[in-house]
């Protein structure tokens, strides 16, 4: 197990990589809007190029400027309110004053693991979802949130809860949460805008029909429409694939960090087993936040197959692989300490 000496540089590299990727993501998002706008301007410009002098000439790229500004505004808004939006979308409630023994234990466990991870205690939330799951969100360790479902609290022992909480704190500590939350917020915005523009185009089409506008602009509008609609169809797929790809490798890393914080990898392994065997359906955790969770709440079959398709599309590595790795860590640890039970199988 890697502790101390070689953990720090990789942690800093991980943090830097996450900061960089978040910046890239935001820049890419704004560029996408710019492309939509200026692309539209260019088509409009070409279409009006051979118009007679008294007809409209599209020379000023107002569409591009407006859309770029809008895109930048959305990105800024998404980046700043991402954590709130994620928590809001799951209907989480914050635990400030633990009322029950169960909540008290959760708060205690989170405080313990924050000490082990050496980060400030995140704000704690509970999602009233019977399916066991957990996620973390936030911008950095100073502004972080950790949410667990009611199902997780009901199902896990104290040690298992510790393992899961430590996994989430691992995501917080290496800035995974910044990248993942920004991604979730921007994916959400794109889905929202797609729905919104869809409605706009529908109403716009019926409006122009009733007004019976001239047919000289018809071809142009069709071209614009096709590009726009294609863009809005492709964008969510691309961003979602990005979300999936970005989150898979991180799960192994966070599992390893959890093992480092708790020194008890077998507890997280058994927690993952319990989560996998749970039949309770997720009621509050939806697609938008799936890549933030410790295990995919949608229970997609893809995640269970370590094949090529699973590698591309699944948001999480197969749970089986994660459990095997954790058990391997536990075995190595027990062997090192000479506390191997006599009947344990040789791996």
């Amino acid at each position, binding site marked *: 197990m890697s502790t101390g000496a070689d953990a720090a540089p990789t942690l800093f590299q991980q943090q830097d990589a996450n900061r960089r990727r978040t910046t890239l993501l935001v820049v890419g998002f704004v560029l996408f809007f710019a492309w939509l706008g200026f692309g539209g301007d260019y088509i409009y410009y070409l279409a009006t190029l051979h118009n007679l002098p008294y007809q409209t000439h599209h020379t000023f790229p107002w569409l591009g400027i407006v859309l770029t500004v809008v895109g930048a505004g959305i990105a800024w808004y998404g980046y700043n309110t991402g954590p709130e939006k994620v928590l809001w979308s799951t209907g989480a409630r914050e635990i400030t004053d633990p009322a029950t023994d169960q909540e008290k234990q959760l708060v205690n466990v989170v405080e313990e693991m924050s000490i082990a991870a050496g980060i400030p205690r995140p704000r704690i939330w509970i999602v009233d979802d019977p399916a066991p799951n957990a996620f973390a969100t936030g911008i950095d360790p100073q502004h972080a949130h950790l949410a667990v479902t009611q199902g997780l609290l009901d199902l896990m022992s*104290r040690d298992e809860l510790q393992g899961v909480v430590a996994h989430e704190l691992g995501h917080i500590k290496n800035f995974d949460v910044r990248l993942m939350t920004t991604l979730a917020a921007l994916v959400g915005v794109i889905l929202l805008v797609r729905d919104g523009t869809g409605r706009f185009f529908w109403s716009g089409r019926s409006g122009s029909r009733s007004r019976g506008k001239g047919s000289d602009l018809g071809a142009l509008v069709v071209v614009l429409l096709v590009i726009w609609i294609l863009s809005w169809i492709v964008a969510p797929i691309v961003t979602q694939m990005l979300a999936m790809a970005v989150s898979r490798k991180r799960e192994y890393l966070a599992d390893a960090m959890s093992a480092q914080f708790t020194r008890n990898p077998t507890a997280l392994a058994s927690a993952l087993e319990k989560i996998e065997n749970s039949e309770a359906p997720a009621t509050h955790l939806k697609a938008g936040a799936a890549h933030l969770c410790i295990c995919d709440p949608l229970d997609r079959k893809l995640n269970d197959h370590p094949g090529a398709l699973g590698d591309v599309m699944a948001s999480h590595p197969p749970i089986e692989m994660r459990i095997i790795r954790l058990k391997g860590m536990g075995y190595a640890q027990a062997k090192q300490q000479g506390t191997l039970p006599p009947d344990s199988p040789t791996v």
Partner: protein
Amino acid sequence: MGAWILLILLVVAVFWAIGAYNGLISLKNQTVNAFKQIDVQLKRRHDLIPNLVNAVKGAMDFEKSTLEAVVQARNQAVQVNAAGPDAMKQISQAENALSGALSKLMVVVERYPDLKATGNVGQLQEELTSTENRISFARQLYNDTATQYNTKQQQFPASLMAGLAHAAPAQLWEIDDQADKAVPQVDLSMKPKA
């Protein structure tokens, strides 16, 4: 041409030295901070114990000696106000004795299922577990950070900068084996684990 190469080498060396120096200072501060964290958690435990003992005194009238041992160990740990090279050893001895007394209390609580059923005692158990965990995790973080700091200042070439950064090996927080061994680990009550 030769002068240029020399100059470039010099600049590279200076930049490396600044980086190595800052790295050592950063680790040093992290180590100091991690040690403070142990202190914070120990203090929290000292403050918590009187309240906890008061809360369960009534329910545990028959195990007075165990409770008294805890209070006594706590008072001794509070009084240790050592400074100097032996400070850490003295503090850790007193605190380990307190940990031992507390785990005995936990074992006693485990032995009486009826006792566990009373609300106060269940909460006491959770609080004790959490307190002990906090201390051991703070200790773990300190030891990890200190090991990292010690390794860094001893490894070549960062060791060249160790003198300039006033880096000295940090003492690790040892766990006293005696105190651990004194804790009875066997649970004979034959009831399922909670």
